[in-house]
């Protein structure tokens, strides 16, 4: 169990080091059409005239 953990922890640190070294961000936007987490659209809403619109009013009561 302890050896398995040591292996897992060392592997995780190695993977983290690799991701850090290649400048990868876990939550960054991916290129369109590339992979499960690829970006599809900005996610912002547009009005009938094509303008970006705000659909969420401020939350303060």
């Amino acid at each position, binding site marked *: 169990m302890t050896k398995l953990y040591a292996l897992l922890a060392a592997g995780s640190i190695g993977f983290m080091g690799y991701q850090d070294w290649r400048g990868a961000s876990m939550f960054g*936007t991916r290129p369109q059409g590339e992979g499960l987490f690829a970006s599809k659209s900005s996610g912002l809403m547009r009005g009938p005239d094509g303008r970006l619109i705000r659909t969420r009013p401020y939350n303060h009561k």
Partner: protein
Amino acid sequence: MFAICGYCQAMVLRKGADLENLGKISEIMEDGSPIRLGMGGKFKGRDFQVAGRIQLRWSDGIWNEWYLLYADGTPGWLGEGSGMFFATFQREVPPGIIPAFDSLAAGQEVTVSGKPFSVSWKETSRCVSGEGELPFAVAEGWESPSIDLIGPDGAFVTFDYSDDPPSLYVGEEVKVESLALDASTAAPQKARKVAAESLSCLSCGAPYNPHGKDAASWGCPTCGAVHEVLAGRLQKIYANLEPPDIRPGLELGMVGRFEELDWTVVGIQRRKSTWQDSDAAGGWATGSDWDEYLLWNEQNGYRWLVESDGHWNWIRTVPANLAKGQTAVLPGAPRRSEFKHFSSYHAVTTWVVGEFYWRVKTGDRNSVVDHVSPPWVLTRETDDRESIWSAGLYMDRAQILSAFERGSGLVGKGKVKLPPPPNTIAANQPNPFAAQGKAMRSLLWKFVVAAILVHILTTLFLPSGVVAKGDFLVGTDTSAASSRFAVGPFAFEHDRGNVEVILEAAGLDNDWVAVDAVLTDRATGRTWTTGKEISRYSGYDSDGSWTEGSREATLRFDGLERGEYLLELETGRDPSKTAPQPLSVKVRRNASTLSWLLLTLLVVCAVPVFAIWRSMGFESRRWAQSDGASGDDE
């Protein structure tokens, strides 16, 4: 000089050149002692010879005081009782130093030479026999009131009240095998006859096969009659006991192999815990039963095997004296252990069968205090005469089964029946998760430090910095000039990495700006699409001032490769706003991110936290059964 003839038992006192005949004394009772008159030996490098012995009887049996003469002429004593040996030397003390006999009780704390001692035994013994040479005259019936005390690390003291003023003897417990006894110089032993009728139950005639020669009582396994035993002979019946409904797991005569020796079950007593409870009948509540097996080995005397709730302990008496917070080194223990008080209660014997080295009685309520340092338990049991310390080593069911299968030659035959495995946690049960928890705890910090170091080093050497920026005025119409902007093109000069786009809408208040962003690799046509709304609102209400949102937002594009990129922004605004809104855009390459570090720390910590939690949970369940008292007294 006083001497007893080994053949006619005549007692002779020599005063100068005169000899005085003091009559005769009874023959020595056969007690199975490994020591014999005339034997040579060694204690702490000093040669001695066994010169004489006084055999004394106390309420629970027989014990010996062997008189030793060391090579340098120093006299000494070797007390022998219940399979234990204590080497002592007389020390001169001023009169009045030793407390009065009646002022001390079993278990009482006494300071001797600045060290804490406790009274382990208080008794007035009577001489029943003697042999060899002694420094003073004794006779049959001669009384010897004495008090034994045990101190730290096996220190042993006796107050002898047969002298006036009382004498002080100081010494320690010794192992008989450490005395290097030499039988070649020992006096020949007389052959003794034992009457056949004294080896049968005085009630039903069932045979009595004595084991330990210092047996003091025997419970007949056939009829339940409990006999007084003296010198291996049944004397009289003093109790009759009904057998219990549930029989003990082990039986008399079974042989177990422990410490590479064969140990025979010679006695079994069933006991139960009891404690004062005003709500219980008679003011005493009772707990569960447990069985104590007395085991005997010819060379090593007695040990105990205690089974409670399916948990087993291998127990021997020890000359311990554990004060609060004290540590002790137990026989067989690899190191000094700190013992913690676990519980105080009373124990009552409810049934006995077989042979015991004291006059075993049912119904007596003894005070018991348990201290634990798994896998050890150190127990002090006190009655009105003595206070005995014993050390128990936890054993699991498989060890006991194996020991009795090997000892009885029944390996794999399924004939040794033991109670089912426990479903509770014993006071001194080793924590099966402790070693893993400890190892994990040690590894955890190393891996946490390693993860942080790796993260710092990799991000430190990753080239970063602003690669493009632009300042714009966002209008309210949809014209390209006021709502669409481009940053770059800029070069990304690394094989792989990310860029972070920092948007700042200076002066934004009670307003919003929506930003739709597209990053394009101009060579390959790969695009990244994302967006964010920058909004900040503020005001006052009955609770005071408030703000919501931020004038800054960050976009992150991941998976970039070496190439030339263009960032295009499309903005949107509240049409009711008329003044242009400044928007500052900065593109920074290879921005550091904590996300992988955090994920790694989660993975690195999860397993040890689980292991530590499991280990702590075991301890928590163990200590939930403790009575919580912090002292070592009942």
